[in-house]
């Protein structure tokens, strides 16, 4: 079974640089890249429906763009994608655990630690909670 590298992709395309780095590593070690979009529409009760559909559409567009970019730059690398209805950090950790992945690669938008702690930052939370290596790649 090929080694797998998990990449977190945001709806705004954050994580593209991380995906490119992961794909480059994957091409060298004959591994697979898994693009993960985690989203949590349920800020008030379990109601999603149209909200969930709209968010998923945004995620699919972002992931498709990244996938096309990777396919062009590293044509030999196998790419999968997963859309997980959960808080982004939980989504990444669960997919990584389920797939026995080697590493989680995520982007970094340049916010400081205080901002990350107060306003929440997927990357900030992930590096403190992950049980496997996390690769942080600054977004371009």
């Amino acid at each position, binding site marked *: 079974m090929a080694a797998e590298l998990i990449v977190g992709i945001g*709806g705004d395309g954050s994580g593209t640089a991380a995906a490119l780095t992961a794909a480059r590593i994957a091409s060298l070690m004959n591994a697979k890249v898994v693009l993960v979009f985690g989203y949590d529409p*349920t800020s008030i009760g379990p109601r999603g429906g149209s909200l969930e559909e709209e968010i998923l559409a945004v995620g699919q567009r972002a992931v498709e763009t990244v996938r096309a970019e990777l396919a062009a730059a590293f044509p030999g690398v196998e790419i999968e994608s997963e*859309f*997980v*209805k959960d808080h982004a950090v939980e989504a990444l950790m669960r997919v990584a655990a389920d797939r026995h992945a080697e590493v989680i690669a995520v982007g970094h938008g340049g916010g400081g630690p205080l901002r990350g702690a107060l306003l929440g930052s997927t990357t900030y939370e992930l590096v403190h909670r992950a049980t496997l290596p996390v690769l942080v790649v600054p977004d371009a």
Partner: protein
Amino acid sequence: MSVAVHENTVPSKGLKGGSLGLIAVIVIGVASTAPGYSLAASIGLVTGEANTKAPFIMLFAFVPMACIAASFYYLNKADPDCGTNFTWGVRAFGPKAGWIAGWGCIVADLVIMPNLAGVSGQYLILLFDEKSADNIYLTTFIGILFIIAMTWICWKGIELSARSQVLLLGTELVVLAVFAVVAIGKSLGNGTTRVVDGTTYHSIKPSLSWMSPSGLSTNAITAGLVVAVFIYWGWDTCVSVNEEAKDSSKTPGRAAVLSTLVLLAIYLIVSYGAVSLLGPQFVTDNSDDAMYALGKIALPTIMVKLLVIAVLTSAAASCQTTILPATRTMLSMGSHGAAPAKLAQIDPKRLTPDYSSWLFGGISIAWYLVLVTVSHNTSTDAYSASIAAVGMAIAVYYGLSGVSCILYFRRWIFKSLKNFVLIGFLPGFGGVVLIYVFCKTVWDARNGDYGYGTLFGVGTVLLIGTLLLVLGIPLMLWASKKYPTFFSYSVDPPDLAKDPDSDDTLAAPLGTYRKKGRV
């Protein structure tokens, strides 16, 4: 290449660790009802209508709201769309009535915004300088900033962690409870007397009869109810959270019951404390900032500050029951093609409806300024009137969801006693009571002696409560020309409504059923 979409049965909601604990579920339910703010905004008005019987009204208003929660619970099983009343209305009544139900929900949220902004502005100033609290320019300015801040929070998708919520709500409840106990204590024995602005107020001994309706006229009960339904607005979140965590343990069921008891208890003791401290007249005379005026008499300065902070944080928390549902309804209407698609636009980074959020924030500010101008230049009290007006809007759209539930599930009502009670009787009873309260208020509020003043010869409550609702009709007719596809949807065939107690309860996507002969 493969694409997988995973569903997580227990969404984490940022509450670390996955499952919602007992305390967390109670906190979410109580916090979205915002007891501190609800009391600050309504206790003076309820006491004005019901005098010493305020505790009765506070308790009684819970009955129809709890009945309607049953219909929310079941309709949510068929269609958990964020458009709630809008999508349920389309399924039960058809696209036109559904559109109006969605509009009613947005209007209710809009009507309350000036009060939320006004109370927050006023209490924020009271924290620092009591004398400036009457400065209308300052309170309005801070109120506008508050609306912008809340819209920003909703747009940003910021949620407090469970621990911060527990801390904030814990402070709020403790301060309210201490106030109530001290106030009741001061009314016992010889009682307390105060002279304020030349009027002498004396405390009265609390009596169990305050919890009975005897001696109250039907007019006073409905007038009190239309204000008091507002204090339980958002309580239905308890039911939603309950559903969400059902697989984790028995926690949620117990939590829903416990949070309801906590809420009822706090409303009961605080209304007892408020009425007994210096008598009901004092509460009525200070209805603009009743909790502050009462707190100042009962509590030491530091506790008064805490009380003010509790009202403020509670007001901020209540954006969960105002801005969020409004923008989610707008998104749902845009997404289902019943309104401009722009309303469904999602911010790619924050994954929240950005266009709807800022549109709602902007309209709220405009509406707030209209009410401030009206209140300042006429004898009418548009602020307080907006609480009664929101009660009307809540009554009409909650009432409609009760009727929707019966219509939608009519095939299942008589299948079992449990179904009859939970899907038929409770939603029906709650719906009838609320629609009666709405109609009675429309009738009673048509002239000036209802209170809150008049505008253009019509009672202000009636004007605010129905003007925006009625405005929905021409808008709906415009939308029906512009969006013919959506308006060709028909009601869901009742035979196809699924058993709400089975494993598969989800209805077919909205728009599956169309009127014959139209595309």
